[in-house]
C-alpha cells in the first residue's frame, strides 16, 4: 500500500482536533497536579496528623496500580455511586490524580534536598512551619525538583493516549478510529509516531537545557 498524502490532508482537521484535545487534557492535568504536588508535599513534610498518612497512602495507591485500571475505576466505577462525570472530566481527573502522586514525590524530593541549616535558620528566625515552606522550602524545592517535575509533565502527555480507551477522541483515538474504519495504517501511524516523538523529544530537550541552567550556580 502506498503512502497517500492526500488522504492525510483530508483527515488533517480531525487529527488537529484530536491533538487539541490531547493538549487541553494534558495542560489541565499538569496544572492541577502541580497544585496537588505542592500542597501534598507540604502536608507530608509538615507531618500534619492523619492527613499526612492519607496522602502517603494515595501516593502508594497511584504508583502501584495501572493507570488504565484507575481510568476504568473513575469512568465506569464512580457513576455507579451516583458520581457521574463527563467523558473529558473523567479523563482529566484520572491524569490529574496520576500525575499529582508523582508531583508530590518530586516536590518532596526537592524539599529533602534542602540543607538542614536553612531550616534551622528559619526556625531560629521565628518562622512557623507554614512560613518556612512558603518562603524558603517550596521556592528552593521547586528549583531542585523542576527537572523531575517537568519529566512527569512529559509523561502526562504520553499517558493522555490512554484516554482513547474510554472513547475520548484525542490524537491516538482519532488515528486508530481511522485505521479501523478505512483499513489504511501507514499514514495514521506515521502521524502518531512523528506527533508524539516530536512533542516528547522537544520537551525532554527543553528539560535537559533547563537542568543545565539550574546547575549553573553550582558549577565551577
Amino acid at each position: 500500500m502506498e503512502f497517500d498524502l492526500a488522504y492525510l490532508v483530508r483527515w488533517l482537521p480531525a487529527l488537529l482536533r484530536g491533538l487539541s484535545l490531547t493538549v487541553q487534557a494534558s495542560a489541565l492535568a499538569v496544572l492541577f497536579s502541580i497544585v496537588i504536588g505542592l500542597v501534598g508535599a507540604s502536608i507530608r513534610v509538615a507531618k500534619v496528623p492523619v492527613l499526612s498518612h492519607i496522602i502517603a497512602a494515595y501516593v502508594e495507591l497511584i504508583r502501584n496500580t495501572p493507570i488504565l485500571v484507575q481510568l476504568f475505576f473513575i469512568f465506569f466505577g464512580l457513576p455507579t455511586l451516583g458520581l457521574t462525570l463527563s467523558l473529558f472530566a473523567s479523563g482529566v481527573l484520572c491524569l490529574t490524580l496520576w500525575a499529582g502522586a508523582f508531583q508530590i514525590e518530586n516536590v518532596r524530593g526537592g524539599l529533602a534536598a534542602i540543607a538542614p541549616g536553612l531550616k534551622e535558620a528559619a526556625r531560629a528566625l521565628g518562622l512557623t512551619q507554614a512560613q518556612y515552606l512558603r518562603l524558603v522550602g517550596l521556592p528552593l524545592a521547586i528549583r531542585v525538583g523542576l527537572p523531575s517535575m517537568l519529566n512527569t509533565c512529559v509523561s502526562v502527555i504520553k499517558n493522555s493516549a490512554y484516554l482513547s480507551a474510554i472513547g475520548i477522541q484525542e490524537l491516538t483515538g482519532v488515528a486508530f478510529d481511522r485505521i479501523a474504519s478505512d483499513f489504511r495504517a501507514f499514514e495514521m501511524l506515521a502521524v502518531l509516531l512523528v506527533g508524539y516523538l516530536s512533542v516528547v523529544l522537544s520537551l525532554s530537550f527543553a528539560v535537559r537545557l533547563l537542568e543545565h541552567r539550574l546547575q549553573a550556580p553550582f558549577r565551577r
Partner: protein
Amino acid sequence: MNLIIENLPLLWIGLKATLSLALVTLLASSAIGVVLGSLATLKPKPLRVAVALYVETFRDIPLIVTIFTIFFGAPFVGVPLEPFPAVALGLSLWGGANASEIVRAGITSVPAGQTEAARALGLHTAKIYLLILWPQATRAVLPAYTGLLALLFQSTSLGALVGVTEFLKAGGLIIERSTVMLGVNPSFQIYGVVLAVYFVISSGLSLLSRWLERRLAKGGTRAVVAAPDAASL
C-alpha cells in the same frame, strides 16, 4: 462479595494470563536488555548511537501506541498477530528499552580498575563481560530490575484493550455479565477489587526492590538508580 466468589475461576484465568504475560515479557526484555545494554558499553560509536536511538524511541512513544501499532499494524504487513503475542511483543520492546538502560548503567557502575586489571591479566573482551562485568553488574541492577518487573506487571493491563483476557479484562467481563443478566452494574466493586489486587502484587514488588537496595548498600554495593520511574510509561 457473592459476585466475586462466584466469579473466582474467571478472575483466576485473568490473573494467570496477567502473570504469564509479565513473566514472558520480563524474559524477553532481559534478553534485549543484556545484549543492547552491553553493546552500549563497547567502544564503537555507531553501536552506542543505535542503542540510544532504540531506547529513546520506545521510551518516548506512549506504550499504548506501540501496542496498538503492532496489533493493528501487523495485518497490513502480512503477519496478523494474535492479541497475546502482539501485547507481549509491544511490552518486550518497551521493557527491553528500559532494561538496556539499566544494564548499561549497571556495567558502567563497575569500577574501571576491574576491567583494566582483567585486561592486564590477558582476558579478552568476551571473558571480561562474562566473568567480571556481568556478575558485578547483576548485583547493582537488582533493585532497578525489580522495579521494572513491577511496571511490566502493571502494563500488562493494556492487553485488555486488544482482547487479551487478562486480569482487567476478566473484571470487565464480570461487570458486563452481571449488568446484562442481573441488571446491576457492579463496576465500582469489581474495579475496586481489581485495583486492590494489582496494588498488593505491585507494592510487594516495590517493597522487595527497596529491601534489595538496603541490603546491597550494607554489602557496600551501590545500587543502580536507573530504575524506570513509572513516569516513563
